[in-house]
């Protein structure tokens, strides 16, 4: 296997040869791995599908720009939010995107520390996914405020002549710290991991622009032992820093709700249940992305059936945790004998948003039970479908939590309904576009699988290590 590796036309063709336990197909050497991954960026022609996909995503990004411009021009009123439902799509999307990001960190940090070597081939783009998801998520808390031009800096504790600080008791301030820390650490972690590969690209790039740009990004990487030593130390340290974030970020996000006194929000189960939900949706998103990318770029050798199965298993487990969360929430609401609390599950199940609620149960609890079957776990089509369903279900979960709790709270006189408007949907779809556009750029310009780490997985590397 040399230069000019052709993408495998039949998505099953390559996979057939790969045993289900393998994390990398047999027969690969250092150079084949490097060739195969770097050629996507450097050598191969940009496939027409890329152009098509990128154009579509870019178009949606423009829709986002339009929606945001109109929002800033007119005000939050272009959305469906009202009194009593003061939060709508924006917060739903925020929580959803943040949740998606979690899988990336979990794969790259926690699985690294747990020495789950199968993670290697998926961690790079899972991390990229995290980064882009956090970028999308970060837009919403700013945009959903009435005066974003002030919110964007008043929420940060900066010294000012008036001596005014944020109100540190508010969970929204905790959010600011949690999310900004998360974004920073994720970016560093991803970038540090990229450095050796950037150097590879610098060395292999045929164009001057590529050499200069990759060269600058590689920060003078020469691959010396000292470099490797420091690199690995830094990488491990970052993994250590990132690990608590997997738990903390969504815990803090859940405080946005749990701290409030609103029935349906004011629940101690929220932190673990949100973290589980985040990992659940994150893995669903990784699968949603990995399955097509693997097929399109012929990466079945690297992202093997074992990867997909493992991710499916993680989904199954976290899905069950989430189901347990739903159950506990409803049980405690009933057990509390509090009329306001016990009304919430009743209203969710039978009220105005019952169809959304039961869709959520179907998407998040019923359908994923199929993952118990190995046949389902090994079928990319079935996995892909289930992943999409779980993504929808997790979005609905946040919609149900945010909207149904607000729309009927304490005083029946203020009960009302909420529905997203065209601009709500535009902003949401727009962030999907932004996310995909960034991903398209990522797979086109950066190695989507870590070359360095993949090489370390090869038998060659192990032999050398033994000596």
């Amino acid at each position, binding site marked *: 296997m040399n230069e000019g590796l052709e993408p495998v036309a039949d998505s099953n063709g390559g996979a057939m040869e790969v045993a289900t336990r393998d994390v990398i197909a047999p027969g690969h050497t250092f150079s084949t791995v490097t060739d195969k991954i770097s050629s996507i960026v450097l050598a191969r022609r940009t496939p027409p599908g890329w152009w098509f996909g990128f154009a579509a995503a870019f178009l949606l990004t423009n829709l986002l720009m339009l929606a945001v411009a109109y929002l800033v021009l007119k005000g939050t009123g272009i959305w*469906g939010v009202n*009194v009593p439902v*003061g939060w709508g799509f924006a917060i739903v999307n925020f929580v959803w995107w943040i949740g998606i990001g979690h899988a990336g960190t979990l794969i790259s940090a926690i699985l690294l520390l747990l020495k789950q070597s199968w993670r290697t081939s998926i961690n790079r783009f899972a991390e990229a996914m995290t980064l882009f998801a956090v970028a999308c998520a970060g837009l919403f808390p700013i945009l959903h405020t*009435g005066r974003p031009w002030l919110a964007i800096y008043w929420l940060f504790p900066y010294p000012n002549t008036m001596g005014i600080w944020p*109100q540190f008791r*508010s*969970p929204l301030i905790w959010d600011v710290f949690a999310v900004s820390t998360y974004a920073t650490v994720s970016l560093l972690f991803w970038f540090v991991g990229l450095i050796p590969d950037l150097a590879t690209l610098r060395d292999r790039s045929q164009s001057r622009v590529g050499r200069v740009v990759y060269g600058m990004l590689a920060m003078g990487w020469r691959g010396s032992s000292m470099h490797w030593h420091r690199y690995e130390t830094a990488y491990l340290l970052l993994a250590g820093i990132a690990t608590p974030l997997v738990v903390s970020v969504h815990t803090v996000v859940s405080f946005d709700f749990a701290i409030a006194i609103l029935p349906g929000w004011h629940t101690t189960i929220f932190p673990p249940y949100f973290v589980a939900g985040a990992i659940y949706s994150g893995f669903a998103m990784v699968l949603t992305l990995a399955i097509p990318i693997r097929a399109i770029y012929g990466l079945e050798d690297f992202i093997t059936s074992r990867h997909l199965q493992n991710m499916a298993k993680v989904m199954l487990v976290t899905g069950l945790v989430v189901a347990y969360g739903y159950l506990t929430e409803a049980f405690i609401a009933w057990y509390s004998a509090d009329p306001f609390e016990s009304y919430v599950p009743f209203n969710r199940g039978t009220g105005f948003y019952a169809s959304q609620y039961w869709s959520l149960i179907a998407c998040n609890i019923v359908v994923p039970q199929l993952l118990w079957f190995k046949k389902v776990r090994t079928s990319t089509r079935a996995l892909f479908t289930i992943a999409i369903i779980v993504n929808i279900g997790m979005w609905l979960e946040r919609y149900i939590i945010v909207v149904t709790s607000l729309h009927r709270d304490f005083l029946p006189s203020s009960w009302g309904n909420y529905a997203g408007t065209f601009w709500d949907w535009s902003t949401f779809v727009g962030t999907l576009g932004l996310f995909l556009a960034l991903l398209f750029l990522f797979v086109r310009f950066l190695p989507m699988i870590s070359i360095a780490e993949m090489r370390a997985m090869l038998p060659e590397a192990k032999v050398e290590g033994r000596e």
Partner: protein
Amino acid sequence: MSRDDQRDPNAEPRTNPAPRILNVDAVPAGAAPVPARFWRTLEEHAGDSRFDAFVRQEFPSQVEAIVDPVQRRTFLKLMGASMALAGFSACTRQPAEPIVPYVRQPEELIPGRPLFYATAMSLGGVASGLLVECHEGRPTKVEGNALHPGSLGAADVFGQAAILGLYDPDRARTLTRLGEIQAWPSFLGAMRAALTAQTPLQGAGIRILTESIASPTLGAQIHEILARFPSARWHQWDPASGDQARAGTKLAFGEYLGVQYHFDRADVVLTLDADVLSCGPGSLRYARDFAARRRPGDRPMNRLYAVEVMPTPTGARADHRLALRPGQIEPAVRRLAAAVGAPGAASVDSGRSAAFVDAVAADLRAHRGACLVVAGAEQSPAVHALAHAINGALGNIGRTITYTDPVEVEPTDQLASIRALVDDMNAGRVDLLVVVSGNPVYTAPPDLKFGDAMGRVPVRVHLSLHEDETSALCHWQIPESHFLESWSDARAFDGTVSIVQPVIAPLYETRSAHELLAALSERPERSAYDIVRGFWSRETITPEFEARWRRWVHDGAVPDTAFAPKAVGGAAVPPPGADGPAAAGGFEIAFRADPSVLDGRFANNGWLQELPKPITRLTWDNAVLVSPATAARLEAGGMPATTGGEHGQIISDVVEVRCQGRSVQGALFVVPGHADDCATVHLGFGRTRGGRVAPGVGFDANALRAASALSFAAGAEIVKTGRTHPLACTQYHFLMEGRHTVRAVTLEEFERDPAAMTEGDETPPKTLTLYPEFPYDGYKWGMAIDVNACIGCNACVVACQAENNIPVVGKEQVLRGREMHWIRIDTYHRGPAERPETFFQPVPCMQCENAPCEVVCPVGATVHSHEGLNDMVYNRCVGTRYCSNNCPYKVRRFNFLLYQDWDTPSLKLGRNPDVTVRSRGVMEKCTYCVQRINEAKIDAEKEGRTVRDGEIQPACAQTCPAEAIVFGNLNDPGSRVSALKASERNYALLGELNTRPRTTYLGAVRNVNAEIGE
């Protein structure tokens, strides 16, 4: 003549010259602003041609453009462009209008401190006294006049909304003839010609059409004209005045009489389709007297029975309420008359109401001389006469009901009056028609075809605030001065005279009715001030007139002008069928003046259009109101929409109401407690002209009426059209869902065990927190709201809107659940849908001591004051809306869009300068009128004392006719609010959440008649 000269130089206290639109023609050339002239000279030397253009603009060739609101913007744009071209001259540009600073500060005027002037507002021929708050000459807020017997310090929604009526940018501004701007002298010329032609005919072709007139001076003016032209005729048509009540006294006593009720003396009251507490003459006074008897413990509690078609605020306060179809009311009243022994009354079988009527009759008989029966304005003269006879039989006359001379200048059968006018016009006997206020083309019964008849009159003159439907058909449209801009006088429900004084010079080239009628007299150029003062100086011939006049104007009520009670004979019981054929049966329709816009005269007032109507909580629409059972039979109704839903948007079936060949289409709305097999429709909607707000709102129910049946029509049918219409309803969920938001017990239960009111209440202990309790030394503000006294009249809502610069958001935003009112009247029904108990609960901010909103705000924009107020810092708010989400009372309101009108100049004048005008993206809510608190605190501090109880009244409390809202210092054990909070009826709304609200409620107590049962 400058119109400021019309003011009495001695009127007390003086108003300041108010800003007016510059009449450039009147300004001598030398009066041009000095800086402009300086620049002019300099630039002319420079010979800058662009600046020449600027000079041309600067000087008043464009003055029409300034006056015309449409052109003004274009003009300003042009100005802006030329300014930019003129370059450096732009930096020092002075306004084109001469600005005159106070050289000597006017007496009594301290910049930043408001002055209050007494005046009065008449509606339907009856006045209520007002006190108008003026900031530097701009009226900004209306209060009731405590010295006026018809107000006692309270004002109703119409009084409260008068400020917006004054500053309404859509008011008619210039005198026009067939749409062309004319000068007042040319109108005078035209009148002179018309009158001269009429002189030989003794004015046989002159017709004056007015509304009911409460002004003795105006009446005298008309009589003066009639004396000059003996064959001229004066007609009256005022849908807001009780034509049938008037006819009722004539039927009962043979003469027109004024009727006064004394609720303070009545132990048992029965209302017959009468919303006597929330609308009609004297309602503010009646509400006060009634509520005073609804506080168990103080005085024996009264008992109210209500028989009505459509649930009204009065019916909601009733201890027993019976819903009857319009046609069922008269038999019930006849049965009652017989039961109480009214002479000549024969008992009739009143059907399903019999048991109720018999029980009420027994109760009334047990309280002879201390009971009261009140018939509603829409009831037939026969029902009114029967009510008088019943009161007579029960010995109430002279005790709980007194009769006086009529308050109106000239009571008349207005339906006959307008019929006669239409006949004369059709017969070509009218040469000159002067319509003084009112909008008869819209309000007259459609089968009279008033507009068509009017078209036959050669000269038609209309005086009105807006260019409305009648203006469109008149030659001369005379813009009317608002009552806050003109001198007049008026009588209250008890006859007390008020001098109406202007609080601002007319904003536009407008005239008052006095000035218009003067134009028809021999001395056409008299000012309203001269006319009114002249009238009273002739009436009161005394050397002390000057001093007295000043006192009258100052107090807003002329002492000793209330009518003395008149002895009346026994009221005759009219024979059945006295009103013509009884209702033909079948489906019935009841026509009502709208609680917000009345007969349509307030249709261009955004505050009133957006005001959730009592009971239905509808805004921006009228609807076909039916009972749940009738709606079920019609298979029509409404569904909460996905956006807004129960708090905002109800998608309602559009039905066609057909009645004797006429039909209208409107949205159906279900009202629990409405009588079955009939529908209520409100008049005043479906306007086609009259400003930007009025047209296109609702449907014109008047189109369904016939002159023969103005209040009720029988034999109607309702058909579903299959279309739907979104109704903007701010509350559609009327059930408490077992949440005890309103506590209510019966009087018997309460007397047996006062703790029954707060049974099951759970207030978390204060030891739950690790923090030490905040001591709240000094002032500790709190509020108590008496649910038992509240009549749901909405006055507090409009008062709050006026005081706190609350914007109008429009129907589209109300549909989304985004209305901005800081206080709302939550309405709850209890019991079966066909006869629910209804409660009103005004909900402002609770000012929680443990405010859930405060902890969640990320920027500290809502913080707690050391006096216990939950303060909003608008500047700091970034609009996360987290506080609103976490507010269990949902009293916070968010500026989702730019709701405030920053552009319209006239609206800027009306804003309260003490309250921040909020912009987009900011949360806002009730502040307990913190601006008033601070003002009183500063005053008290200057005088070295503490604030006295009652010195601070939030706008809602101040205007409440029922005194249901009481505010004060909880640290003062002697304060009224402390006493109320110590009451056994006191409870905290959602107190179990440990929010520790400072606003608490006094639960409702129903004085149930055991014979009828709950």
